[in-house]
């Protein structure tokens, strides 16, 4: 990554949730590496990714946690949600079942995150228009009803992927600006480094000092 590890003021934690096989990892990979995962056979793991973005002139480090989508792990993946500032809820537009499960995912997210957590609905695989099983309108309506942000994206082509992540970040940042998000709350999912020019931007979580490995392609 071009940006140094300390050139950011905030760290946002995202989680990507959704049924198995909806393309969570591909979205993550597309966002962090700007490549479709299937085209990168040498990529080792993309279950955890970071990328620094810029929102309103503020550099923000996004840490994205991929999660296991199997129903059987649903009960135990609770700790994933801890301290997430943003949740990307993904379904596959070519598989209706993944869309039908959204409500349970949403329930989990609402229950396990703080109220200020931004939830973003992504209908993945929009490049497969021919196999579409869930209409845009239907999903859009669902998002509206639940107060979610919504976009249809394609991890393969990269359409709207960047947008989804950035919009979420903007929303979170806005919450911070609005004071809706308490930075001092233990599980806000946001870490703020009081950015002070001259090299005293404060501390960040030290665990991840190096960005995610670059794609080997």
């Amino acid at each position: 990554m071009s940006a140094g590890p300390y050139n950011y003021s905030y760290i946002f934690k995202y989680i990507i949730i959704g049924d198995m096989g909806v393309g969570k990892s591909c979205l993550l990979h597309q966002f962090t590496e700007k490549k479709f995962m299937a085209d990168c056979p040498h990529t080792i793991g993309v279950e955890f990714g970071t990328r620094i973005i810029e929102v309103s002139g503020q550099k923000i480090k996004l840490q994205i946690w991929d999660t296991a989508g199997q129903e059987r792990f649903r009960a135990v993946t609770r700790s994933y949600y801890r301290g997430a500032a943003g949740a990307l809820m993904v379904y596959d537009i070519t598989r209706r079942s993944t869309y039908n499960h959204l409500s349970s995912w949403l329930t989990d997210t609402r229950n396990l995150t703080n109220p200020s957590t931004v939830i973003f609905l992504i209908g993945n695989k929009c490049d497969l228009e021919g196999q579409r099983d869930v209409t845009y309108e239907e999903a859009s309506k669902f998002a509206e009803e639940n107060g979610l942000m919504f976009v249809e994206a394609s991890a393969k082509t990269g359409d709207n992927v960047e947008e989804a992540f950035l919009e979420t970040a903007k929303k979170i940042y806005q919450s911070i600006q609005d004071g809706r998000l308490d930075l001092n709350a233990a599980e806000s999912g946001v870490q703020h480094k009081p950015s002070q020019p001259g090299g005293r931007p404060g501390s960040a979580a030290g665990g991840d000092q190096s960005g995610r490995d670059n794609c080997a392609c």
Partner: protein
Amino acid sequence: MYATKQPSLRIKQADLKCKNGCGYFGNADWEGYCSKCYRNHMDKERQRKSNQSQHGDHSKATSFSKFEEKKRQQSDKKTKYFLPVFRKPSSLKETGRPEKYIDIRQMNPDADKLLAEFISAYGEWGEAVRKDFLKCVHSFTSKIIHELDFKSADELADIAQNYYNSYNNRLNNNTVYQNVTPDVRDKLLDFFERYSMVGLYTFLFCPPSTNDEDKDLSIQDRIRKLSWVNAHHLDCCISETSIEVRDLVYTAINDLLGMDSMKAPQEKLACVVRCCRSVVEVLQHCQGGPVSADEFLPALIFIVLKANPARLKSNMLYVTRFCYGARLMQGEAGYYFTNLCCAVSFIENLTAESLNMAQQEFEAYMSGEVTCVSAWESALVACEGMHQLCEHLSLLKGLSERMSAVKDDTQKLKDDMRKLKEEINDEVTSVLERTPLVIKPRKTIFPLTMEFLKSLPPLPEKPPIPDKGKEVEINQDVDTAPKFYQQNITLTQMGLSDNKPKLQLDITPCVNLPSASVVKPSLSTDFLSVPSPAADKSIESITPDDNSYLGLSKINYDIDFSDISAENSIIEDLGESRRSPTMSFTPDPFSPMGTGCPIMQSPLVPSAAEMPRVEVPPVRKNDFVLPFLEEIEKEDTKKETLLDKVEETPTICLPPPIKPTEYTGFSKQGSRIPSIPCNTGDVSSLNLQQSAGSSKDTN
């Protein structure tokens, strides 16, 4: 307390009074004080206790808290060790700390190492940074140790988190750290946590106030019970049988197991991260592509199940409590640790449903009713087998090398032996050629028959020695038999032509022949005649001798053969009638009697009965021996001379030859020798007579 009262039955007035001497009556329940004084006393006591605890003087404090747990008392004793620290909590600066250093070192041998590491890593930021760092560490550790007995693990965790945060703030705001770069500040925070936690590890890891240990045991038991779960059950693509995958899985398991040996939470986290990276590698190897969380979590569960790490729960709780909170919720370490928590919690709550199997089946597995030989186990077994196989193969290789060496040596030895044998053979043959060995045994036998020797002049020895020796050597092969016959024949012919004197000669050659093969044929042929009823007549005369010993000297039978032509003719007739069989038999007669006899007997009987006695032995004999003669005749030219000599020599010693011949005969027959003397004498005489008679008959 009570002890003061109990011993004395009579209670004195003074004893009933308040111990304080206030004049009021005291009460045993109030420790001998009056109610007012007791209250005062208790207040004082309480105050003292609080003072003591503040000073860490727990030895007295514990005496008041009778109901405290044993464990806690033990830990009290531990903490008592750090008394000096608590007495001067405020004076933790440079001068007040020598004792503290010792304590830290004693409770943690790694502290020195860590300090050295700190100096080498952050020494460049100056003495002030180091001092402040150590000051904070000590204030943190002493605070924790101070609160150890009064706070639950979670409260301690809160204290720790507060300290982390305050140190983090200090790093960012204190002027001491003004010049320190941000990344070093992060590292300092890390090091702060590490340094403190390494020191406090013994107190904070699996503290006695918690039931972490029980949790450890229960999850361990649980994982043990779930040992039958395989990758397939978890829908995990780990191919348990592949060697490369297995190695990677082992790496992952080792990383996870390493967690227990680390002391600082972040070190434990690092182990988890390493393990998870190995798992990702495993998955990438198995599915040949990028790995997503959907595949990762089941794989991690599989690894946890196979690893069954020691004190898993304690480790996880320790990390959760005392790792800097921000790190647990963010960053790669946090992510992987979260996954581990998920995996463990999945294992704890694992049901038939979560494994996609029937409840009954699940219960059967869990109760051990059904034992499932999982691919993993069998792979392990196979692996073990392979390992052993390899070991054995290398062993076998070594053995085969040694074997081949041994073989070579053996071959060498064989060659040497063969050479030696050849040499010896050559030597022996040369020696045999040089010295006529054959006769020598005769000499040895002489002593046995000394009686005869005494009576007889030693003449016979000399003549046969050169002749027979040579003859035997020459004839030892097939020739001997024909020779013998030839001799017989020639002799008989001679006997026929000549009279008694020649007959005697006739005996000697055949008897003289030292080799059994030569002698026996005559016997066998004779024996053939013996059992046959037709021959009985002729034998009847000899029967006495026969009875004494079947193997009687051939001489007798030779004589029978040659002389009693009338009887022998029967055999020869047989030979005639069934020439072809007899021809085949002819060599047999030269073989030991045992073989020769039975073969001939049965056919002989009937034929002999039928056949009329022909009394033309000489002609017949020639016929019978013809095949041999034909061969011999070629050699005859050479051997004739020998034979002649043979014949000649006995002629010289006409009177004695009978006896020496007998010896040889017996020597061949071994054990029967002792009985020889008496019989031989008779037999020889008989033979002589018979031969004379027969010769006469033939004539």
